[in-house]
């Protein structure tokens, strides 16, 4: 596998019934391609947290997943309120999610910290009132 494979998904705001579709689909494809289960787990966790964040906080957006032999890059672009204080948002336990979201089992302020923990590189660019772009990378160690 030398070529890059690019997968694209659309995420709608407030659509919890479809949240997780992108991560499930990427997980299935990576399995078929024979990636290591630990790599797949890291990708699935980071991407699902990202998807859920888009559903909860944004007005909708897109996910692009670029699969290369040596890394999996996920680019999540949304239109929305943006993140006012990224440093604060990265702190475990900090959340701006409403009670409705907490009652669904989220909103504990673990999304971004989980993404950081389970990825190898996380880059957040956000403009308040415009939207947020996340670039998440998971590296694939090449076996000699």
């Amino acid at each position, binding site marked *: 596998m030398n070529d890059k494979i690019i997968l694209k998904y659309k995420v709608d705001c407030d659509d919890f*019934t479809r949240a*997780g579709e992108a*991560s499930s689909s990427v997980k299935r494809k990576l399995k078929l391609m024979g990636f290591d289960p630990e790599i797949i787990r890291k990708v699935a*966790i980071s991407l*699902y947290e990202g998807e859920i964040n888009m559903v909860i906080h944004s007005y909708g957006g897109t996910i692009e997943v670029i699969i290369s032999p040596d890394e999996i890059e996920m680019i999540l672009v949304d239109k929305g309120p943006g993140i006012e204080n990224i440093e604060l948002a990265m702190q475990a336990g900090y959340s701006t999610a409403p009670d409705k979201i907490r009652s*669904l*089992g*989220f909103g504990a302020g*673990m999304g971004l910290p989980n993404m950081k923990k389970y990825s190898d590189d996380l880059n957040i660019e956000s403009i308040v009132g415009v939207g947020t772009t996340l670039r998440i990378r998971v590296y694939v160690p090449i076996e000699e």
Partner: protein
Amino acid sequence: MTIEKFVECFAELKVINKGTQLDREVTGPYCCDLLSIAMSKMPQGAAWVTVMANVNTLAVATLAEAACIILAEGATLDTDALDKAKEKGVTVLGTHLPVFETALLVYNRINE
């Protein structure tokens, strides 16, 4: 123990949805209601005991490759979640027992 056998041997647990892949192994119970933790820590093949009964529970169970979901404390799936369980082929069981007692029951039965 396979999911098929697991479902049969628990008279205490009501079958809410019988999923597909019933030949997979149930490795043990796992308890957590916070989905971010459940997704990252749940072992594959777990019988996931939770009171969270919405579509997100189904998504997390699928991603974490849980063997089944056991809804404790009388929690039930709403229509969207039941549809999702059927679509994804996830086995969902239910009980009025609390979380700990449910997990203990599962643990003891699997390790008998």
